[in-house]
């Protein structure tokens, strides 16, 4: 009888260890997969954080260009935009579009057609479908 219980205990232990082992193995494999994905994303992300930090500079250039109306400055602005474009960064089209919170952020409500973007305060940017920063816009409140 003692043997019977021993066998049962061992069987239980074996089953438990088997489950634990499989779980650890699965965890490991999943981690491996994710690490691979993350590695390919890392390069893009490293670039992303730099771009994110460059955006305020781009905003300020934009403001300066508007104020100064200097052709030379506009050229510099264009150049920087080109570089970003080459990195796959695109400007979110907001002006005269219907407000979309997935890509835009409303900073103020102004007179104008309801739900329509009346003014872009700061451009938004995305890489592919990933929004780096939403466009900051003023939205019409309707009559």
């Amino acid at each position, binding site marked *: 009888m003692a043997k019977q219980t021993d066998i049962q205990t061992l069987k239980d232990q074996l089953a*438990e260890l088997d489950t*634990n082992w499989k779980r650890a193995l699965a*965890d490991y494999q999943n981690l491996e997969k994710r690490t691979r994905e993350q590695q390919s994303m890392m390069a893009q992300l490293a670039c992303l954080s730099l771009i994110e930090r460059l955006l305020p500079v781009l905003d300020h250039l934009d403001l300066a260009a508007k104020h100064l109306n200097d052709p030379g400055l506009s050229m510099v602005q264009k150049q920087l935009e080109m570089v970003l474009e080459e990195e796959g960064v695109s400007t979110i089209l907001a002006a005269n579009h219907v407000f979309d*919170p997935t890509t835009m952020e*409303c900073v103020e409500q102004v007179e104008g057609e309801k739900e329509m973007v009346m003014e872009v305060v700061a451009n938004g940017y995305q890489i592919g479908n990933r929004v780096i920063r939403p466009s900051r816009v003023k939205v019409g409140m309707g009559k």
Partner: protein
Amino acid sequence: MSKIIGIDLGTTNSAVAVMEGGTPKVIPTAEGRNTIPSIVEPVKNLVGDVAKRQMILNSKNTVYSVKRLMGRRIDDKQVTLTQKHVPYEIVAGKDETASVKIDGKVYTPQEISAKILQKAKADAEAYLGEPVTRAVITVPAYFDDSQRQATKQAGEIAGLTVERIINEPTAAALAYGLDKKDSQTIAVYDLGGGTFDISILEIGGGVFEVKSTNGDTFLGGDDFDAKIINWIVAEFKKENGVDLSGDKQALQRIRDSAEKAKIELSSSAETEINQPFISMNNGQPLHLTMKLTRAKLEELVDDLIQKTIDPVKAALKDAKIDVGKVDEVVLVGGMTRMPKVQQVVKDFFKKEPHKGVNPDEVVAIGAAIQGGVLMGDVKDILLLDVTPLTLGVETMGGIRTPIIERNTTVPTSKSQVFSTAADNQPQVEIHILQGEREMAADNKSLGRFVLDGIAPAPRGIPQIEVVFDIDANGILKVSANDKGTGKTQHITIKNATNLSDEEVEKMKTEAEKHAEDDKKKKELAEAHNHAHQTVFELEKQLKEHGDKLPEEDKKNIEEQVAKLKELADKEDTDAETLNKAIETTMTAAQKLGEILYKQEAGKGKTEEKPTATKDEKPADDKKDAVEGEVVE
């Protein structure tokens, strides 16, 4: 069975974490961030960042801080207070419970919270790649039964089985592993975006008991930001005579700057705030540019920080605990990143607070750990050890060659193939080392053994595979196998991973202290090795092919080799001189190579890789180190 995720359902922000491979990980949102703003627009079903972005446009339909209403009655003082702060409509729902009315429809706080939880669930599923149906959710320690019940219902509405509701301070303590201590008093100081909570916990037998709680439901990071914004606006007005407080766009930009400045001043003493073209005056553009020092910031927010102390005192009083009796202090919430906050807490408790875990994520991490315990993941998981220090062998020139790097999780097995250092070397000695220093002599010697009976062969030809194997009990077995003869020798070292923390710390600091020095020593040893090996190779080639060279060239090479040998034999020759000499010698020896290639026309078999050499007498066996060239 589904994994149990841990959710910190916060007033301002929420976060999700899960146990993976025995360690908690924060799950990033679909937007690529680590926290979800606790904001919901229920009509269009927008949650988090997306809901936040349309808040101004749709303020009456956008619900935030709904946690303040959870499980409360409409006549609750907290509800009346909240009503004054939020633009959406708070109404009496079923049984006089506080609810929100959006676009004519009444939603319970549970339903609104469920939307946040649903997003948490969806993000977790996307991350884990499997359905998630179970969760541990945290609540403030002061939540009563009906508030806890409401939180549980929120989980159920979101399609989650709520395995447990745990207190936020308990979760924070779990994240720091404080459940493993016994009979301790823990103070959890939680200064978040909109609320301040202090909790006094007692831990005994792995069970946490909340002794008291206190706080300020309307004090947090937002108030700190407001102080900075007001200061910037006032300074600007003083300088330029223009009041920006009515200019929404300018304010938005100042708010961004203030937040950035606040973050930067946690790590640096001074920051610059730059917002060009912020406004116009008499047709001239005005630029906002000013310096903000950490000292100034601390002065600005000092009263806010001091405001947290009274609740702390009250909590201690309620718990009937003297401040000196608090064993551990834990910091939670983004604002506790501020050095001044840490300082004030430290000064008050006269104790260094725990702060290693990201304070925005620490509650979610604790919840995930609780989830792991419930899954049996944490309790049953083999707590895998790591090797605290690098394990390696001594190679030519007294260099330490690492085999198993420190912090490698055990059990593990690593091997490298080495060779002999001299022709016809009959045996090698394997000297096992532990430590972080570059030179063998500076590390701890764990043991040594000799593998003999190596068949006579030129140096670099025999292949000796050295295997380091550490089992789950930290027992290190080192074996050496001569691939030529199949002869094997091994040694077993117990307690290779079993070092006291002090010992490990000491060895690590020593290594750091000597890093620069050690590197130089190693480079010198390597240069000597390289020089000896160059001499050896060239002498061999000269012997074999020298007669094919014009006498003049041969003589020149021989002279260079002799010079190099002389330099290499002198122990005080520095690395730079050696490396230069090697280069000169190799340039001279190019003639030899030319001849060789011409004659053999590429069909000649290439010699084995040049390897480090030290002209040691093979007879002096004990001193023969294995060679540092690796054939993986």
